[in-house]
């Protein structure tokens, strides 16, 4: 419960930003409730002027009716304004939370992003916040007016006839007891429901996201079976949650019926004793109805709110994830690196139990080409993670232009790198936008020029709308190699002092690759580059070839030297021609 309280407190903090709207909403809620309650009195008064045949005071009735019409007008306007404010507050708060969650995502360490299921993060930022805003809206519209209505009716009833009012006051709370009894017993069912929902969302994200593989294996039936299994469970849990929670309403309505009957009896008796007029009974009955109604709604809202709080909790949990350590206040802004890179006694592992890189040393002079080769899983990509400072080293240090990279602002450090990764990522957007990703201000000419250098121009021209063709989610119809060409064009447009190519041309045909290499070569003059590759043709001309195995450099030198040495590199090099 205390956890819920913390969540509620945080929600309130967000709401505080909309103070004006909340107060306006409250004000108009109060007005509309007061007027809504006052109108039945007037109607009752009106009816009191209708006594029987030939005894109807039309003048008085007219006056009363006129007042009613005016008040009703005010009420409806107040209601509308209140609704507008509520919408504004809820959707606004939801937006703030959503934006904050997303901004947070941009600051999370890679370690978090790499080790958490994307489906789950997506569902927190999208689905949970959506649910949260639904619940919040209901809370706002119904809780406010509900509480105010209860208070208001109470006052009005007391002012008409205290005795009968007491009857109402005594009976109604029973409905709350019933409601909270049901709520308590359904909460666990709701929890089960949302857990199962999470499960099914995760399965859907995984399978629909990789639909092509599923089809390739003709695995549809198996997947369907798994889906059915979760879906059946979801059905079961939902049925329970939905049914049991929906018993609240009839139960409380039944209690309201009792209240109504109670008022009827006491009203009748009082009327017989002449303590109350028939018009008053009418107003009273209608109050009794209005007084009990919010109890119904509040009990309904409570479940919604419970759900909203659970969702908010999940989002906050995400927002509370530790961010990347901030840049030091005195961090250097590395303007334009000369390209000198040093790694000294670097230790690193993703998982403390499994040692990966141990005492790694490397010194790269400005303008050198470094190639990293080695069997898969030997830690080549890890070196890049460290150079880019996606991960921080455990021990030792990495220096760029003589500065420890932890003392350089991340932004300026990364501005000095141009990176092409094996896993091509393109944004959904036009081809031109994608090429200009690293340099959004680039002109169309520059974009085309970069594409030409990356040998992407030809295929782009053939696309339906050329450079303006929108690439659909996940790259759509582009082949892996075409995607890589676009990623290369993206870097061509930036010309950074240090270039990192992690298997950047693995899916590109070798003829194009050689041309691209030449282009790179031209562009890399005087620039430092790190190239991870399997194709030894790609790396033959490197100044230093690092041969890695199990996180360590086992050989180091240029192509000729390493061949002569007849070591691991020699084996690797010859294996590529083996069958």
């Amino acid at each position: 419960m205390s956890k819920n309280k913390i969540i509620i407190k945080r929600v309130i903090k967000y709401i505080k930003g909309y103070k004006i709207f909340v107060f306006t909403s409250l004000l108009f809620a109060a007005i509309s409730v007061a007027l809504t309650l006052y109108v039945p009195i007037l109607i009752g008064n009106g009816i009191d002027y209708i006594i029987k045949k030939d005894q109807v005071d039309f003048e008085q009735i007219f006056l009363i009716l006129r007042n009613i019409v005016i008040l009703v007008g005010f009420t409806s306007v107040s209601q509308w304004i209140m609704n507008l404010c509520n919408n504004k507050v809820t959707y606004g708060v939801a937006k703030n939370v959503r934006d904050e969650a997303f901004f947070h995502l941009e600051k999370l360490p890679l370690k978090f992003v790499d080790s958490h299921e994307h489906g789950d993060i997506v569902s927190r930022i999208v689905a949970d916040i959506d649910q949260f805003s639904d619940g919040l809206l209901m809370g706002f519209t119904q809780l406010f007016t509900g509480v105010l209505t209860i208070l208001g009716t109470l006052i009005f009833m007391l002012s008409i006839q205290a005795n009968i009012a007491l009857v109402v006051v005594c009976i109604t709370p029973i409905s709350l007891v019933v409601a909270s009894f049901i709520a308590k017993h359904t909460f666990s069912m709701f929890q089960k429901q949302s857990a199962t929902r999470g499960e099914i969302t995760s399965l859907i994200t995984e399978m629909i996201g990789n639909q092509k593989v599923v089809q390739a294996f003709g695995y549809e039936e198996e997947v369907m079976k798994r889906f059915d299994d979760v879906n059946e469970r979801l059905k079961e849990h939902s049925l329970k949650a939905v049914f049991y929670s929906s018993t609240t309403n009839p139960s409380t309505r039944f209690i309201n019926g009792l209240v109504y009957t109670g008022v009827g009896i006491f009203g009748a008796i009082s009327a017989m004793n002449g303590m109350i007029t028939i018009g008053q009974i009418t107003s009273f009955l209608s109050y009794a109805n209005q007084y009990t109604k919010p109890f119904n709604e509040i009990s309904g809202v409570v479940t919604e709110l419970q759900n909203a709080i659970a969702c908010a909790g999940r989002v906050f949990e995400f927002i509370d994830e530790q961010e990347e350590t901030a840049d030091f206040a005195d961090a250097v802004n590395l303007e334009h690196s000369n390209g000198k890179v040093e790694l000294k006694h670097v230790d690193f592992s993703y998982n403390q139990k499994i040692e990966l890189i141990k005492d790694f040393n490397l010194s790269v002079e400005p303008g050198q080409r470094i190639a990293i080769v080695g069997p898969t899983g030997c830690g080549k990509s890890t070196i890049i993670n460290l150079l880019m400072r996606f991960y921080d080293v455990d021990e030792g240090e990495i220096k760029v232009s003589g500065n420890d990279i932890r003392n350089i602002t991340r932004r300026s450090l990364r501005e000095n790198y141009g990176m092409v990764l094996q896993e091509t990522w393109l944004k959904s957007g036009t081809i031109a936008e994608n090429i200009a990703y690293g340099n959004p201000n680039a002109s169309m000419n520059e974009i085309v020029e970069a594409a030409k250098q990356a040998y992407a121009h030809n295929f782009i021209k053939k696309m339906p709308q050329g450079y303006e063709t929108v690439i659909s989610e996940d790259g759509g119809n582009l082949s892996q190699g075409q995607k890589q060409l676009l990623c290369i064009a993206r870097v061509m447009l930036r010309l950074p002092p240090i270039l990192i190519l992690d298997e950047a041309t693995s899916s590109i045909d070798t003829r194009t690759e050689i041309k691209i290499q030449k282009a790179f070569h031209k562009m890399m003059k005087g620039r430092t580059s790190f190239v991870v590759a399997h194709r030894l043709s790609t790396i033959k001309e490197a100044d230093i070839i690092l041969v890695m195995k199990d996180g360590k450099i086992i050989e180091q030198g240029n192509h000729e030297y390493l061949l002569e040495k007849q070591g691991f590199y020699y084996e690797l090099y010859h294996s590529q021609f083996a069958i």
Partner: protein
Amino acid sequence: MFRLFKYIKNYKKESILAPLFKFLEASFELLIPLVMVRIIDIGIKNRDIEYVKKMSIIMVILGIIGLLCSLVAQFFAAKAAVGFGSSIRRDLFQHIQSLSYNEIDKIGSSTMITRLTSDVNQIQTGFNLLLRLFLRSPCIVFGAMVMAFTINMKAAFVFVVTIPVISVFVLALMIISIPIYKKVQNKLDKVLLLTKENLAGVRVIRAFNRQKDESEAFESASSDLVKTQLMGGNISALLNPFTYVMINLAIVTLVWIGGKQVYKGIITQGEVVALVNYMSQILVELVKLAFLIIMLTKSLACGNRVNQLLQEEASVVDTAETKIIPKDGPSVEFKDVGFLYQGAKEEALSNLTFVANKGQTIGVIGGTGSGKSSLVNLIPRFYDVISGEVLVNGVNVKEYSLQQLRSKIGIVPQKAVLFRGTIRENMRWGKKDATDKEIWEALEIAQAKEIVELKDGGLDALVLQEGKNLSGGQRQRLTIARALVKKPEILILDDSSSALDYATDAKLRRAIQTISSNTTVFLVSQRAATIKNADKILVLDDGKIVGSGTHEQLILNCEVYQEICLSQLSKEEVQ
């Protein structure tokens, strides 16, 4: 839209009983004011306490019956709605699975995911409320009107005017807001897409220092969503105030007309009270109905989206389940095949003709975008050709059921994806009942044995969603093993050793050759060395076959092939 209603079929009984019991409940509720009239008109007038008590007991009994009816109704409604929701979810999922690559490319997975989750949930909630309230509320409204007629014709006409006016307004509001809510869901798709994209592209975004721009893009998508939500919300917000005004105007008119009728001695004061009560009851119902209508409008918008997806026809149409008996013929044959991606200007493949015999290894090589993957994607019929035909075992692929066709083929796609579960479960994707022995064999051929051996738990080691806890090369080898477990007649390796070093790649090829006496292997690669020893090499350039034959033949007479080889191998090696 009404297509979705077929899902009610299985819950016919519940869908009828729920509103019916609601209707009963409503009827009992309508009786209560009548009893009250009697208390006022007879009980109070005659000062008959006994009568008042009797009537009160009747009211309580009516209440209990109402409660029971309502509970029964809620149960059936919940059962029908939840069942309705899950069967839509199921069918939609199944439908998406039946879509072919063309539609998957076109629609994108983000929106499919929101439709399957958030939209279906919304429909379920909407349907539940519909069953619970939609019959009840109109029943109370019309019931109240009928009751009013039994009291006084003239006064009842107030009801006759008010109700249609409100109905028309409500309808208009719905018509206006359904498209808006649909837009809301579409904007939600966009938010989801950006979130997904930013997770997948986290490295590139940070490398290019675009976090701020991405955040801004997200914020603008988020603002856009809120704007549309507000538009919908503010329009829906008119509903309550409007009904409130209308009903109160009706009450005012009732009091006035009622007063006249009483003056003329046609009705009693108690009857005026009853009339006003009926009208108030309508108000209460309409307020509930307004809430329902807002929910329903959202649900309808979601229903539209789900329906749209359901109507999306798979471009590759599966044939009947009958088993085709393969004829004698080459394992795979292309006859003058042309292929075009949806929306593309130029053919991705044209005039392809070749034959691959059983047990042969076919190398496919060519420049980036020359159509290598497109070619192999036609064999398992991921796409349909636009001209010519593709034959497997002498039968056009269109004549097989997809199930039968794809069961023959093991494919290793470019993108190495594994699924959450144990390694064993992943390996069994190829063959449901594969034994550990078979799995180990496949792992060994795929050079993935040591990956598994080094994992805690071996075959029981857990793979995270999309295989995130494995490196690219490890994933690739496991996906190859997964295809091998199947022992397919046709094995397609679509550039699937790109993340492997040459030594591993060479070992892999050697291992695959040992098994391939009965397996036709398609090797798609950029590496000349990889395909050099294939029985037949197809050289693709710009969607056409520009050379076909063995390495020795091609090196002599195919210019493109020569260029490719010379770019990779030394002169001596080429010879």
